[in-house]
């Protein structure tokens, strides 16, 4: 009987069966082993084996192709990004806040662009505010004038 991986079968069986059943178990195993080894072992045909190898090899080629394509794509993207970063020198923007005043350390290469955008937003915001205040004053004057006119009109109406 096979002694697999130094397995002590008798010891193992003792844990689960009494002496009689352990012996019966071992005899049945020996019997099955004898029968199985006496019969002709079913084997796959050479053709089947070659077919399996072909399928694996084909699958492997496809896998490699995709891996290489993905790696090439990543490399191209990295190269293009690197070329763009080093080719474009950071533009010098005039802003109300200087780069040194900026507290965040998260921006390095894009600081100037960020300041420019930020300053533009602030400029537009100020202009809007001024316009709004001017408009508000004009509007307020118009309302006062309209009210005066209305009062005059009302008085004149009752006077006939």
């Amino acid at each position, binding site marked *: 009987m*096979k002694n697999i*991986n130094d397995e002590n079968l008798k010891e193992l069986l003792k844990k689960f069966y009494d002496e009689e059943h352990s012996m019966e178990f071992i005899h*049945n195993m020996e019997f*099955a082993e004898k029968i199985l080894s006496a019969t002709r072992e079913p084997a796959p045909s050479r053709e*089947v*084996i070659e077919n399996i*190898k072909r*399928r*694996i090899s084909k699958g*492997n080629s496809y896998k490699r192709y995709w891996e290489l394509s993905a790696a090439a794509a990543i490399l191209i993207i990295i190269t293009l990004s690197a070329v763009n970063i080093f080719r474009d020198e950071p533009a010098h923007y005039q802003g109300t806040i200087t780069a040194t005043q900026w507290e965040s350390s998260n921006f390095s290469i894009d600081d100037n662009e960020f300041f420019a955008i930020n300053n533009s937003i602030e400029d537009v915001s100020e202009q809007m505010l001024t316009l709004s205040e001017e408009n508000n004053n004009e509007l307020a004057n118009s309302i006062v004038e309209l009210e005066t006119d209305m009062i005059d009109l009302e008085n004149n109406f009752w006077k006939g």
Partner: protein
Amino acid sequence: MMSRDLEKIIAGCKKGQNSAYSELVDCYSQKIYAYFYRLTGNRDISNDLLSELFLKVIKNIKKFKDGSFDSWIYKIASNVFHDFLREKQKQRKINSEYAENAESFYLDSQHEKADMGQHLQNQLNKIDAEEREIVLLRFYSDLSFKEIAEIRNEPIGTTLSKLHRSLKKLRSLIGQSK
């Protein structure tokens, strides 16, 4: 414990070497085909299961870290067989003509009764699939009972008791048929 050669083959497979895949197929195809054939009793099905097994092994080879490679590969073989059984059961439900013949996939094997191995096959086919699998795992793989129990996700006592029962049944069937 793995042999040096097997370790090399597995390392080659992990690197994606076709020669290593080829060696792995040569190493295991005989034993696992025998296991599938004794389980199903059908050559065509065994061929399909064997192909499927190796494709799964190659796909997952990087997941194999250490321990017994035999145990790992037979676990996949067992899963492939159970997937096949589930698929067969589904088909049987769909197609009622299979319902009366619970072991329909053994049909072609029954035409080869002259073969002594076939006689054993016929008796094996009479015990239920789960019990048959334990017998075959024990005799076609080099796995210990502990490993077989791990593959089947059950306590070792359960595995032993199922094997004991199926061996008794098999012995009695072979005795009756003589």
